[in-house]
């Protein structure tokens, strides 16, 4: 192992430090930069050759001068993990922020993680009840899924994430839950809001919190989610916890990624983001799932704010291609005073079919949700028409659909911040509003379910 300190910095650019004439240094190896005044900063090797080594400094290069010394630790970055991390608040680079003692590690794990062998994965199929109708009824979350919230600035995505964290449960199961929360570049105020809620509900005891705030070095955001996910993997696969990971805000993470790309003078891809952003994001999101024969699981809810509410923005776009669906928060719904403002039309849960149906939720679930989707879409289309021709010009059938769309938003989408709806309740509510449509319009539902659950027959 090399413990030599090099004083051969030749160039400092953005977050990068170039060191010359070193002995062979491994790719991704950890480095410590020591300032003449004795303070130290951590970094990682991005490029290594006989000629020079490029180090990316996590805490930013402010204050580094050419006279600073660089030491290479001979190993890649590792995260000390332990069961005692539950209830702790750590910085974006893993140092305690809560005044508590340093973490005594049970193990030290590689923060980049390895890919789960697809053969070893277990298919996610356990329904997680979040108590939010638009999720449970229409975009069901299952254990081991990664389901991001696509939001925009000023929308209540944090409230939604907190409500999910608070209410999430697997029906009929008594298992140990843990929340790993990684904040990247959020404001102090937002952080306080999260902390307060965690304390209010007692969730902090079962949580590990990583905080990289808006004024912390941007570059640290690259490692914050990796530390969080490494911790989550330890809790899930070693200790058997059912872990919910909340990552907020992915947009800030991607900005940091772009910053490094620019500093390295890489050829940029769309909107200046690096061409490897897909692979990089995948290396975070894919660390969700279940493994055959292991008790624990990792479910991920990344939050990202879409610049200009643009779902085709590279960050949202690439995320959508990796995650198993998305929950989209819509500004129009907020304006109409509806919380949670989840727009079901653009939302999707790809694993929904795995987690619903007989024995999991209820046999009619799929049919009812399909029917609501179709009817809501038709009703929304009609709103445009009504604006032009007026309600009177509509046929009876069309009027019913128009009313359905309104009812759907008011009865299904809207609910209280602390309202925890059971799945039965959600499905019954959906039937209730579907009953306002003509029975012949219910083309997505098998006859047997209509006879079993339609309020008209149910009462009889």
């Amino acid at each position, binding site marked *: 192992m090399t413990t030599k300190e090099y004083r051969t910095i030749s160039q400092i650019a953005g977050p990068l430090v170039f060191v010359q004439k070193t002995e062979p240094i491994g790719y991704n190896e950890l480095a410590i930069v020591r300032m003449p005044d004795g303070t130290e900063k951590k970094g990682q090797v991005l490029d290594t050759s006989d000629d020079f080594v490029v180090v990316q400094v996590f805490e930013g290069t402010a204050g580094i001068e050419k006279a600073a010394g660089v030491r290479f630790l001979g190993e890649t970055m590792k995260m000390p993990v332990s069961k005692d991390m539950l209830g702790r608040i750590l910085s974006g680079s893993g140092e305690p922020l809560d005044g508590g003692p340093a973490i005594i590690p049970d193990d030290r794990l590689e923060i980049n993680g390895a890919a789960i062998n697809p053969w070893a994965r277990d298919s996610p199929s356990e329904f997680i009840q979040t108590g939010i109708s638009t999720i449970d009824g229409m975009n069901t979350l299952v254990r081991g899924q990664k389901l991001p919230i696509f939001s925009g600035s000023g929308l209540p995505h944090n409230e939604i994430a907190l409500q999910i964290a608070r209410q999430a449960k697997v029906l009929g199961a008594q298992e140990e839950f843990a929340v790993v929360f990684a904040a990247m570049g959020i404001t102090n105020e937002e952080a306080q809001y999260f902390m307060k809620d965690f304390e209010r509900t007692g969730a902090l005891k079962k949580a590990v919190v990583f905080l990289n705030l808006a004024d912390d070095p941007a570059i640290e955001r690259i490692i914050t989610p990796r530390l969080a996910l490494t911790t989550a993997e330890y809790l899930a696969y070693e200790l058997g916890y059912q872990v919910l990971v909340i990552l907020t805000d992915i947009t800030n993470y991607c900005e940091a990624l772009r910053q490094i790309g620019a500093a390295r003078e890489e050829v940029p891809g*769309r909107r200046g983001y690096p061409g490897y952003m897909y692979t990089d994001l995948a290396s975070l999101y894919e660390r969700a799932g279940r493994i055959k024969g292991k008790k624990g699981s990792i479910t991920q809810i990344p939050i990202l704010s879409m610049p200009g509410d643009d779902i085709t923005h590279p960050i949202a776009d690439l995320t959508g291609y990796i995650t198993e669906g998305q929950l989209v928060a819509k500004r129009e719904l907020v304006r109409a005073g509806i919380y949670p403002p989840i727009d079901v039309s*653009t939302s999707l849960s790809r694993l929904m079919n795995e987690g619903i149906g007989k024995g999991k939720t209820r046999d009619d679930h799929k049919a009812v949700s399909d029917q609501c989707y179709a009817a809501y879409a038709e009703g929304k289309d009609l709103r445009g028409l009504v604006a032009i021709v007026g309600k009177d010009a509509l046929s009876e059938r069309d009027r019913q659909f128009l009313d359905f769309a309104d009812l759907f938003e008011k009865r299904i989408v809207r609910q209280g911040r602390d309202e925890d709806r059971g799945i039965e309740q959600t499905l019954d509510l959906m039937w209730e509003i579907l009953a306002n449509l003509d029975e012949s319009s219910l083309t997505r539902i098998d006859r047997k379910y209509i006879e079993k659950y339609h309020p008209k027959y149910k009462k009889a």
Partner: protein
Amino acid sequence: MANEGKIFRVAGPVVTAEGISPRMYDVILVGKEKLMGEVIKIVGDKVVIQVYEDTAGVAPGEPVINTGQPLVAELGPGLLGSVYDGIQRPLPELMSVMGDFIKRGVAAPGLDRKAKWQFTPTVKKGDKVEAGTIIGTVPERSVVHKVMVPPGVSGVIDDIKQGEFTVTDTVAVVSGKPIMMMQKWPVRYGRPFQKKTAPDEPLITGQRILDSLFPLTKGGTGAIPGAFGTGKTVTQQQLAKWSDAEIVVYIGCGERGNEMTEVLTTFPELEDPKTGKPLMGRTILIANTSNMPVAAREASVYTGMTLAEYYRDMGYNVALMADSTSRWAEAMREISSRLEEMPGEEGYPAYLSARLSEFYERAGRIVLADGRTGSISVVGAVSPPGGDLSEPVTQGTLRIVRVFWALDSKLRERRHFPAINWLTSYSLYSGSLDGWYKANVAEDFPELRNWTMELLQKEAELQEIVQLVGSDALPEEQKLTLEVSRLVRELFLQQNAYHKVDTYSPMARQYKYLKSIKMFNDYAQKAIEGDVSVDTIAKMKVRTKLQGSKLEENVDQILDSIIGGELAKEFETLGAK
């Protein structure tokens, strides 16, 4: 030839070495852990290698070994039912060696060296053979595996054996050269063939909108572009499950781990609708999820194609699905940018469209030496950023493929699945397949198909008017067009992949659907001439019955009875009023 050198530089998956003099695309073992890589550039005395595994911790000065061979696929009995990573390492094998996570530096052969296969010769001593001649058969899962003389070998059979052998045992001797069941072929080169021939038979998939309106041929090429969530993967999986190809190669290229797991868990449980045997018995899966090394992702489509070509050469119809070719293109971009190459459009390398055409050109139907044919049909999913079809990968693909299934997020939002837009999709094969449809489905099928397309076109025009004035303002005849096309959409075009009856529609049933809708239309037309309102027609019992038929077990019977008289009868009673 210098076979051992040392590492000069490491930057992510791109490693520069010196002291070796390999050829382009030779496989190099990198570092102390012998990570597998491939030569992608030679500059002066330096060699640039893309490494298929994670390079963390690899340092300059570590050794590199030149294997002197390009990346090859192992071909022989045992491929079917396998699950490989991008460079043909069996995933179950990797799991037993490295545990639940993919670690590195583990080599695992593509074919099991210990398994024994029952070899039955089909030639005898003294027979003349050439490359591609079938010398024997082996039962492999649900198909007959044909052992062929490898490319580049020909002569006279000196010796041929019968019995149980491993893939590396000698089963024949051709002019002094021992032949084993396993052969190797470099993945980046197409396997040789004598002649290509035009495809004239559709690949039947049981998906109504595909088979009836936009058919793909055996040996044809198609693309499914669509924004995320529009159903590319479900469509690809439906094709893998239900298409009437004898062999299916499914490449999960840079896609989701959980989705791959779904394929891995559901496929073994499914039955081939034709043979009743497990579907896995005719399937090869290649899984390189988005967080597995990027260079192996780049190689995965070539590996899959080579396996497909091997079965094509035996005379089978092979369907190859690549999900998604955009991830493959991005892998190229990522490696290209690490090489600091001059980028083309949107950062993709300038050779992107050349690589895409090379890949799709490996599809096609070939004539074998004995006159039989074999084919590879390729369906590539494309994931255009932001659903924007003008981006380079979609455009590069559309220039080559002959079938375009356009996924539409508007349709998805109203849960119209498959969300394939019937106005923008096309199949350049549909005209040339008319003969086949007439001979194998019904004489009037092409006519019905054209009628359906016209109806949908007309509906689209009417919808524009409806958007302005509402449907009540339309004359009865146009209202009927809307009503009938709604029936086409809801009954025929929408198909539920998760419903056990609806997931697969045989060609004969597809015809019955169209036939009954057309009959409904014709009777209704007459009825409105007799002053029956469209509202009344829409509420007819037979209309509801037709609509509901597709979810019923006895759908064929229901359709038969509707066509056979039920429809006519109810319209008669309408007329009486």
